[in-house]
């Protein structure tokens, strides 16, 4: 890097001062250095961890990707729309698991429809508060999480919801096709469809513009409120879908099912390179982030690290990624 600094004044135009240039180079160095370090750590961890490169483990990773990926894609939509992230991911998913299992006696079709509809409605209300009247996303989603938990506790009387005895109508959700779990195919299908939709539809383009510059979007006559509501609706649908799958997978539903879903979703979207400031990113990136987060969790788990270390590492990764993304952006702007 020192050679870069030394040759810097001759490189770019005469208007640029050497100090500024060396700083830029330094930032760039830090940025790519960190990415390389991160990649090296994962590769090393993967090779060095006993049992990582086995088919069983790959299947295990993909199974957790199936859940994390779903909520990460939902989070990605909210992030692209310029509204940061939802802190109600886990609560929505947990409530969805409970609703789905509780409604199974009335038939799986009804259970599916009502659960997903609940996700959409809950998302729409939050979307209206955020996009319509400009309320802060973080606060709205924290409040929504509290309300959802309250309603779930009230409706379930604090009990864990179990599927009806002998009901096998939902077990196909836990089945395997060509050695991989069914939710994986659902996730990939969702990503492909959603990606095409966002690329080809007017909504997809409006979503990015609203996230990039809401004033410009408004001046262009886009109904920004509806775009944000749309993003939250799809996100709510995906959170509920993930919860439904989790409920089917665990064959029980309670608020405890939420686990670290919320943080995993945000970490996956951020690590996938979706701009937390909005406007940039794709659902494929969210999927990539989810795979990375699942790999990190898996490596730590296989090496016998505690739950605390797993959360800590995800937190540090989120912190590092947002700071590096900002540094990179500053370099691009300067």
């Amino acid at each position, binding site marked *: 890097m020192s050679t870069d600094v030394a040759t810097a004044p001759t490189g770019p135009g005469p208007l640029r001062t050497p100090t500024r240039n060396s700083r830029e180079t330094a930032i760039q160095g830090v940025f790519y250095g960190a990415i390389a370090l991160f990649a090296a750590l994962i590769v090393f961890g993967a090779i060095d961890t006993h049992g990582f490169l086995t088919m069983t483990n790959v299947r295990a990773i993909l199974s957790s990707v199936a859940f994390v990926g779903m909520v990460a894609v939902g989070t990605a939509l909210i992030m692209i729309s*310029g*509204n*940061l*992230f939802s802190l109600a991911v886990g609560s929505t998913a947990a409530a969805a698991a409970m609703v789905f299992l509780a409604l199974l006696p009335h038939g799986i079709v009804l259970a599916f429809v009502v659960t997903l509809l609940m996700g959409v409605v809950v998302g729409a209300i939050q979307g209206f*508060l*955020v996009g*319509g*009247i*400009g*309320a*802060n*996303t*973080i*606060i*709205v989603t*924290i*409040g*929504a*999480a*509290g*309300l959802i*938990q*309250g*309603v779930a*506790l*009230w409706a379930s009387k*604090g009990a864990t919801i179990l599927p009806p005895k002998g009901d096998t109508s939902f077990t196909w959700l836990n089945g395997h096709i060509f050695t991989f779990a069914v939710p994986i195919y659902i996730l990939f299908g969702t990503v492909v469809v959603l990606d095409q939709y966002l690329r080809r539809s007017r909504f997809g383009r409006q979503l990015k513009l609203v996230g990039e510059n*809401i*004033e410009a979007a*408004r*001046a*262009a*006559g886009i*109904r920004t*409120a509806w775009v944000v509501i749309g993003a939250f609706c799809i996100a709510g649908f995906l959170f509920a879908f993930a919860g439904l799958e989790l409920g089917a997978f665990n064959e029980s539903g309670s608020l405890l099912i939420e686990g670290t879903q919320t*943080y995993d979703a*945000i*970490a996956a979207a*951020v690590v996938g390179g979706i701009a*937390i*400031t*909005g406007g940039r990113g794709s659902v494929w990136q969210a999927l990539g982030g989810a795979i990375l987060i699942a790999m990190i969790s898996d490596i730590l788990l296989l090496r016998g690290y*505690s*739950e*605390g*270390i*797993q*959360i*800590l*590492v*995800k*937190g*540090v990764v*989120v*912190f590092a990624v*947002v*700071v590096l993304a*900002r*540094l990179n952006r*500053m370099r691009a702007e300067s």
Partner: protein
Amino acid sequence: MSSRLPEVLRFRGAALRPFLILAVFAIAFALLPQYASGEVGTANITDVFTSFAGIGLVSLALGLTMIIGEYDLSVSSTYLLGGMLAVKTGGSAPALGAAIAVAAGLLVGFVQGWVIAKLRMSSIPVTLGGFISLLGLVYVLSNSKSINYKDIKFTLKLNEPIATVFTERSLIAIGIFLVIAAVFAFTWLGRDVRAIGSDRKAARASGVRVDRIVIGTFMASASISAFSGALLAYSLAYATPNRTVAPLVFATTAALLGGVSLSGGRGNPLGIGCGVLCLALLNEALAVTGSAAYVTYLVTGGLLLVVVIVDAPHLLRWWRTTKAAENLRLGFSGSAAAPAGAGGER
């Protein structure tokens, strides 16, 4: 002349509002026995101050960052971390444990504040990273279990009643509130902090040391919430790792009720104190009437949504019109977008 008066002496409508809201809550609480089963007595007032001591300082910590137009998501983790550190290190000397908790808070606040100020980043992504990492750290320190505090004598001393309605812990919390309120009212700091919250560029242009105050506010926020966690852990005689965002819900609601705005530039410590008392009264009312746990969730979550809707910048606009794009031009570039839009000041 009036502009020369200390802030605390200039009572205007907005500054009075938290006190009025508190009066309404207090009257409603006093009237409670007439409309619901349950008794109200001095023991309830003691309870109110106890819950004030438990979570009031976290509201103050978060409120301070909200006044400068930021939002410190990590307070709920520093709160847990402070309690855990105090219980683990303060076994023989409670003051040492509290000092370690505060020192950890100062360090956390400095790192987050420095990144936010120097890299011109929005506080939410930065403190989200802090929030998750510190939560993990709390689980690591505690090995995912509750840790008991050994010095029971000290715990009893903190909970001993003083002047019927107070305890040592509630007096400590009230004392910290009053000190920070005094700093706000009688020094240039309060004015500068609010200036940063309303218009950071203008504040910078008029010579306010913006970066220092932003970093200082985050250090204050993290150390106050860490201390608050230590105080709580000492008085309960245990610290426990907990993933809930309940402290965040409480603290945000209290700050918003107390006249702080998410867009920054408004509010003061006394107002936040009023907001905390409102919620403490509400919790006590729920306890007196023997309400189930879910009612507390519903009431606190619902109340937070109500205050955030009232605080929302475009509420009136939504009512008035949704028509022409030109009419919809609004102050989104300014403070309103700062908490939500990220990127901070340009």
